[in-house]
């Protein structure tokens, strides 16, 4: 790890030797060594503390040794979890009922959300997102997985659909902005979709400016990304169904569709739930795609984007916190359902 770190620092230097004069170079290296020195001292101190804790845990009285060892190993994780997750969560929960300057305002923030037209549009949009993306991504992914199963070139076909998973939401947003790009009639079109429309003799369309359809055009982007995930997980799960079960069903007289409904679907039920809930959670949190493609203009905003805008652009921390809380409450049932199904599935197997 250290060598890659050194390399990433040294490589640009080697590539542009002329950029730095000798004096700056010397001070740079001094600086670097100083920083590394601090780092090594830090690492050494860390190891010493860990060593000491483990040593003490090992030397703890025999009767309570297990407990002490448990504490020694669990405590660092718990502390980080507390600082990074639990405290901010509690603080957000508290801020949702303030004006952001520690003045308690009751449920005013929530009243504002549910009475402001813009926020209601965001809530509705989020609902549309969370209904569309998991459904279509899973349905398309499952259909694809079933049809390419055991076909020739299965791996290549899978890679094609899985590849968008590797693209960040921001990257995907930019790519699709180009796909949807619009120029007035008579000008050369730069967007693929509008060019196609022009080719077949139609007028170019402002895809991202016309509500309510623009939200669906944004949704397509996330479906494009998530289908690969659904396909890969479901494909693996389909392969895990014993061949004999499918053969038995065929001998029992089931048609292809009946085998799919009575053997395949029940066999991959657990994975289906995991896929749908995982995509649902990702969808509820969607932010980057909307931010990069429309910035929430033309009624395309979603809760996560409003939360960011309110808290960090408009300085309305109270509003932002309240939106965060609503988002949390929306995610919660999905997570609970997921956990319950997983537990039930374990009982069957």
């Amino acid at each position, binding site marked *: 790890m250290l060598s890659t770190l050194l390399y990433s620092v040294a490589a640009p230097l080697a590539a542009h030797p002329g950029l730095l004069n000798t004096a700056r170079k010397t001070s740079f290296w001094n600086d670097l060594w100083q920083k590394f020195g601090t780092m090594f001292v830090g690492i050494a101190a860390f190891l010493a503390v860990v060593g000491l804790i483990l040593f003490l845990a090992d030397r703890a009285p025999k009767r309570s040794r297990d407990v002490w060892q448990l504490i020694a190993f669990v405590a660092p994780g718990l502390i980080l979890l507390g600082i990074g997750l639990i405290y901010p969560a509690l603080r957000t929960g508290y801020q949702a009922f303030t004006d952001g300057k520690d003045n308690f305002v009751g449920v005013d923030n929530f009243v504002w959300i549910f009475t402001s037209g813009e926020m209601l549009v965001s809530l509705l949009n989020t609902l549309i997102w969370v209904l569309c993306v998991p459904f279509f991504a899973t349905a398309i992914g499952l259909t694809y997985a079933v049809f390419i199963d055991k076909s020739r070139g299965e791996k290549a076909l899978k890679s094609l659909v899985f590849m968008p998973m590797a693209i960040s939401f921001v990257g995907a947003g930019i790519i699709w902005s180009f796909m949807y790009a619009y120029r007035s009639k008579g000008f050369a079109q730069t967007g693929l979709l509008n060019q196609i429309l022009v080719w077949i003799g139609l007028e170019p369309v402002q895809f991202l400016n016309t509500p309510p359809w623009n939200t669906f055009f944004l949704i397509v982007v996330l479906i494009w990304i998530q289908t690969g995930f659904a396909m890969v997980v479901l494909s693996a799960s389909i392969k895990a169904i014993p061949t004999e079960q499918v053969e038995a069903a065929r001998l*029992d007289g089931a048609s292809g569709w009946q085998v799919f409904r009575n053997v395949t679907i029940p066999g991959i039920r657990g994975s289906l739930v995991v896929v749908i809930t995982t995509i649902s959670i990702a969808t509820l949190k969607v932010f980057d795609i909307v931010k990069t493609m429309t910035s929430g203009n033309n009624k395309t905003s979603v809760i996560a984007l409003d939360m960011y805008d309110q808290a960090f652009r408009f300085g309305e921390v109270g509003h932002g916190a309240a939106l965060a809380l609503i988002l949390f409450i929306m995610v919660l049932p999905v997570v609970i359902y997921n956990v319950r199904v997983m537990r039930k599935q374990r009982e069957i*197997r």
Partner: protein
Amino acid sequence: MASVTYDKATRLYPNTPRPAVDSLDLDIADGEFLVLVGPSGCGKSTSLRMLAGLEEVNGGRILIGDKDVTDIAPKDRDIAMVFQNYALYPHMTVAENMGFALKIAGVGKEERAARVLEAAKLLDLEDYLARKPKALSGGQRQRVAMGRAIVRQPQVFLMDEPLSNLDAKLRVQTRTQIASLQRRLGVTTVYVTHDQTEALTMGDRIAVLKDGILQQVGTPRQLLDAPQNVFVAGFIGSPAMNLFPADVTEDGVMFGTALLATPRETLAKVTGTSVTIGVRPEDIEISPIEGKGLQVQVDLVEELGADGYLYGHSEVEGKRTDIVARVDGRDHPNAGETVYVHPVESHVHLFNTESGERINPAAGH
């Protein structure tokens, strides 16, 4: 009910030099219990799966009754199969598992329940109808798999090593249950196993396969008394038949120092100067007195109650040859002693050393 006919049925997997099943000719009568037996990789399971429609037939035909089913989908063949790992549907209860085929066939709910209950009674599964397969023991799962086949009242039962996942005791018990159930229902059954004991105890007739080629078909008695070649002779019977080379003279075959008189027609079929001689352990007589026969050094005697099996070795053509013989449980030679063995002459099997084919007529056949 129907008969089953394999007519030169062949299965050749792509990119393999030799067919997995090579022009199999087999007639199975209506209501018969036929066992396909052979070592692993002999093509017995493939043969069964060809009949089920789960495996392509590359040559020849397969008929169920008078109907050519070679290119018919499994679901239209009216057969039921019991898989080695049972292949129960894990998300369905026992009743749903057994009734699934009927449900697909569009049988009404009440008739379905009645038929499932009937089969469940037959198999002692009434108390488990509401359970999922997960909550059943291995033996119960096996019975559910049987039940699923019975409920359908098919033309033919196919069973692919249905007992191999059970423990030894349960296997013996279930083996008789399946055989008697089959006889009661009278449904034509094709049963695959690698266990020759299972084959001998269950089958009306047994078909022995090796390397995709049918070696012999016959009743258990026929296979024991008149094996057609060395492979069948060595494969069927437990403990296995003693097989070793023996010299041929003008008058007969030498068994150690004893001459076994052999008809001319038999000797005419010998190529070279020796034959392979086969004697089952139960067809060997033992005498402690030096005389005519094969000199055998006793290594071990296995006590099995009424009987015992004597394991010994002898020198045949300069090579150490193991000999097994059945002896009386109470009165037998002990390890370390030297005895002389002689076959019951009417139960000696002679095989051509080169081709492995039987050359002498079998007693009573």
